[in-house]
Structure formats: C-alpha cells, structure tokens
C-alpha cells in the first residue's frame, strides 16, 4: 500500500503565560491511500491539535515542529502558512465536529459551498458553480438540493447540517479528509447514516480518512487502523481487531474496559481509571500514564518508555518491553 501522508516526531507547543503547553509531543504516524486511521483519546489528549497541525489551522502562538512530513508523495520541508494553504482543500480537507458553529450562520449554504469552487476552480461561471453545488449536495445524500442550497445553516436539522458540512469539505475534491468527531453531536440513527455516507464516499474515490474521536463504537465501524493517544503522545497503534482483542498498553485496555457493553457484562462493575489526565504544563517525567497505571513498575515513574515495534503494531510501555503481561 502506498502512503499518502506521513509525519515523524510532530511537536506542537503553545506558549502561554503559565508556561509551555506541550499539546502534541512527538507524534509519528502515516496513512495509506484509501485507508481510515482512527486517532482515539480522551479530551485534552492532543488528538485534535495533531490533526489541525497537519493543515496548520493553528493560532499564531503555536510552535509547530517536525522531523519529516510527506503529503501525496511530496516532502514538506517547512509548513509555512503559504504551504499549508496549498495542502488545505485539495490534498487534505476537514470535516469539523459541530456544523452549527463551523458553518457561517449569516451566509446561505449555496454561498459557503460556492466559495470552495471559486477558490479551487477559478473561471467557473455562476451556472457551473450552481450545477456543481447541486451535484455535490446529491452526492452527500441531501434531498431537494436545489431548495436546501437556498437556506441558512440554522434552517437545517443536525443531520443535514453535517451532510452540508461534508459537502463543503468534499467540494475541493480532496484525497484525504480529517473528520474530527463527525458524529458526536448526532443521534445514533443519524450517526449511522453519516458513517455509511463516509464509507461510501471513501469507496467511490479511494479517499484517505483521519478519524478523530473518543468513541470506540464509531471507530469499530469505519477504521482499519487505530492509534491511541494519551497526554500528547501515541501510546499504542495497531490494526482495529488486534487492538480490541488484545490491547497491549494499560491505558488502551482500561479505556476499552470502561465502556459499557464491550467486555463488561450488564450490570457488572465497569473498569475506571483512577485520577485524572496530567497537567500539560507539567507532564510526569517517566511514562505519562504511570501515576494512573495500576501495574506501574518503579522504572515507569522515572524513565519514559521507548517505542517497541512488533510487525504492524507499536506500543510504548515498560511492562510490554519487559515481557510482563497486563491482566
């Protein structure tokens, strides 16, 4: 399989009056063409900042560094604002979490969608833009596209709004989309529709998807590979089935065990992770999960674990490196 995107040792720091917040602190991963990689983790783990870094949708206070980055066969030496603009849209597009806040409330859908065509295909006439808009609205399954183009975002239901959002992000005909919690704000029945839509769009155009989510249920429906993030680092990565069947990192294991309906029987006691996520201003010096890990060894508190690669899996955990099982 051919890699579409690869990034090595991505670091995104924010300078704040309280100190440097290391939101993303040495993250490496790749996505193949036509593949879905899920980046999973809880609030504040850095998964959204990771995805925003790839297209540099960051505030100016952000300090973005990496050792290597490649998109669509081309190495990106220095992700300047201008270079990021070249990547955004055509190469990597974004589906945001909350269509209500990410669509502009004072413009009709037609205008917001038309803007994308104007930018990416200059020279189109008004009529051509309208035709293309109708076509893409049909493609994402919006009924009566002609009428729906003429409304404001608030006049659409949640599901249709998310479809309109997807239409806008697909209008530039991207080869990869980042979907940041695309279904979180939706009801389960609508969520199922949107997941089906994304899968179908992916089949049709061999698009790569980077799915950002905290919902293992959604992950299992669409992703082929999973990377689990904790406190700014990827702690484990592997194929979906392997991760679910046999999680190697204690955090992944506890996370899966804490969801009702996966491994714990009805009414049984759910696993929970003691304590809270560490302060990003002051991460623990050893393994960042050690203070919450029930299996932590002495070494875990002092030395950050090296990444261990086995076949198509990788994990950063002293227990695993020392061959100790997590039960």
């Amino acid at each position, binding site marked *: 399989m051919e890699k579409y995107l690869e990034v090595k040792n991505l670091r995104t720091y924010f300078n704040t009056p309280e100190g440097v917040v290391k939101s993303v602190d040495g993250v490496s991963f790749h996505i193949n063409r036509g593949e879905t990689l899920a980046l999973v983790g809880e609030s504040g783990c850095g998964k959204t900042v990771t995805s925003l870094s790839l297209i540099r949708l960051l505030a100016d206070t952000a300090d973005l560094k990496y050792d290597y980055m490649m998109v669509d066969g081309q190495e990106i030496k220095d992700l300047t604002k201008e270079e990021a603009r070249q990547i955004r849209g055509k190469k990597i597009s974004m589906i945001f979490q909350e269509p209500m806040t990410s669509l502009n409330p004072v413009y009709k859908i037609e205008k917001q969608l038309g803007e994308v065509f104007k930018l990416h295909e200059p020279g189109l006439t008004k009529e051509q833009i309208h035709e293309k808009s109708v076509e893409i609205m049909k493609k994402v399954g919006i009924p009566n596209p002609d009428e729906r183009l003429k409304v404001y975002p608030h006049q659409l239901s949640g599901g249709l709004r998310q479809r309109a959002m997807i239409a806008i992000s697909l209008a530039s005909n991207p080869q990869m989309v980042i979907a940041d919690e695309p279904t979180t704000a939706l009801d*389960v029945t609508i969520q*199922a529709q949107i997941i089906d839509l994304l899968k179908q769009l992916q089949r049709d155009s061999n698009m790569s998807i980077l799915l950002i989510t905290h919902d293992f*249920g959604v992950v299992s429906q669409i992703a082929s590979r999973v990377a689990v993030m904790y406190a700014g680092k990827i702690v484990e990565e592997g194929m979906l089935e392997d991760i679910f069947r046999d999680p190697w990192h204690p955090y992944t294991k506890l996370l899966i065990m804490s*969801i009702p*309906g996966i491994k714990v029987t009805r009414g049984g006691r759910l696993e929970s992770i003691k304590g809270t996520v560490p302060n990003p201003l002051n991460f623990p010096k050893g393994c960042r999960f050690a203070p919450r890990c029930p299996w932590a060894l002495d070494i875990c508190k002092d030395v950050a674990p090296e990444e261990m690669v086995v076949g198509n899996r990788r994990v950063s955990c002293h227990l695993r490196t020392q061959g100790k099982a997590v039960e």
Partner: protein
Amino acid sequence: MSEMNNQVPILRIEDLKVYFPIKKGLMRRTVGHVKAVDGVDLQIAPGETLGLVGESGCGKTTIGRAIVRLNEPTNGRIIYNDDIDLLKLEGEDLRQIRKKFQIVFQDPYSSLNPRKTVKRLISEVLMVQMGMTQNQAYEEVKRLLNEVGLNAVYAERYPHEFSGGQRQRIAIAKAIALQPEFLVCDEAVSALDVSIQSQIINLLMDLKEQHGNMTYLFISHALNVVEHISDRVAVMYLGKIMELAKTEELFDYPAHPYTKALLSAIPIISGMKQKERIVLQGEVPSAANVPSGCRFHVRCPYATERCSQEEPALREISPGHFCACHLTE
C-alpha cells in the same frame, strides 16, 4: 406489570401530556403546540432503575422534569405511592415532597451556582430542607463529599476549580444530600469522557446499594450505558412510549421496528455479532406536527396502510413486555 404485581409502584404516571404553546405575531396568539410528551403511561417500582431512551426531542427530558415539577404538564397524573398526585401539590406540601425527588442534570457546570463554594451549595440545601444548623450542615457536607469519592478539603472550592467528572460528583452529592427516594438522572454521564463516565456509573450503582431503595429514572441517549445500568427500559419516540420491557428482553428481543433500528444503529465492537441492520431514512418529524396514525410510520421500513391511519396502543405482547405497533398484534 408482572414483576410489580405485589408491589405498589413508587410512581404511576397516567396519560401525561406536556404541550408547549407556539406563539406568533404581535398579539402572541397561540398558533399550535409542540407536543413534547403526548400521552405517556408508566409505572416505576421502588428500587428499580428505569432507563428512558430516545433521540433528541422525543420528550424524555420533559418527563423527567415533569416528575420533579420543573415544568407544568398539560394533562395527566403522577401518583406517588398510590396516594399523592404530585401534580396537585402546592406550597408546603410540594416543598416537603421535593426532598424525595431529586434530579442530576447533564451539564454540572451550568447547574451549579458558580459563585458559591461547594460547602455553601450543599449546606444551604441541608439547612433549608432538613433544618440543620450551620455546623451540622458543614459536617454533613464533608460526609457527602467522601461518599461520592471526593476529598473533604474540596468543600472550600468553587465549581470552576473542578474537572467535569468531579463537578458531576458534586452535583450528585447535592442531589443525595436530602436522602431522596427517587433520583432523575438526565443525561448525567453524557458529557463525560469514557473513563470518567465509568467512574460515575459505578458511583450511581454503589449509591443505590448503600441507600437501600433509591429509585432511578435514567434518561439517556447512550444505549450502551442504559443497557448497563437499567432494570427495565422504555423507548420513546415523538412524545410516546413505543416499547417497554426488561433490559435483557428489550436488547435481545426488540419487538418495535423503531427499537430495532435504534439498537442496530449502535456501533458493534468487533467480536460481537452485528444485529440485523436497519438504517432509518430521514429524521424525526417535528413534535409540532405529529404524523397521523402511528407517529413512526413515515420512517418505518415495514409500515402498512393501517399504520398511517390508526394509532397503535401500547399493549402487552408477552409478560412484562409492552409494544405499540400494529405489526406485533
């Protein structure tokens, strides 16, 4: 309901209707109604956890709020212990009964007063309702914080100083301060991360055990959470109950097409068997304009002519399993 034959239900909801008027124009004339709850009958046994599920706007929250009298129903009765109609109570009687019925909201950040310390937030309740002195109340606050898994030194802090999970613990401490018999949990864990969510679910289950006979109405759209915590589950759609059964029965043998669709929409984690998958077309119609006949028929893949004309009643199809669908007759 079969398993409650020899028990007086703690709550018996009869033909509950909550309509919100739609006002338009200069004179604010009422031009229609949003029928948030449109004729619900429900019995809840003491000590049970009843899960109430459905999509946004189906009226599940409105039922919860009607029980604690946060909104005024248009019609119906809510009978407590086969004796008192909660909807008829006023003044001192209402104040007394409110101790027994408490609610935990989804977002503890907006439901806890940001300008009061935890100590004041909870002790006020104790002084007003239980007649405690300030010192007694402060002692009790410490005990309550311990009970919900928080350190007593947190009593001096303000809500914004806590994480989401801790704030929800405070909201729960406040709700159980008056030793209620009945707790409405309205999306109480929905805004939390999964690892924190599991802590709060465990806490709610522990509290139930420790407090003997607390009854929960657990309102949520998260079906896996409801399945985990509930004894029985009611499925709502557009203001009506579509199906009601014991949790195992409902999740293993759903009868109503809507329940089936809802359950099949839960993403299945690998290794588990995928149920028959029904992806519903379209979205929930507006509660201001409820479809004729069965209100689900416009989205139902099995709808017949009869479904568009005649509204099905909630009937018992097997012991303790109720379903409102012509197809199950």
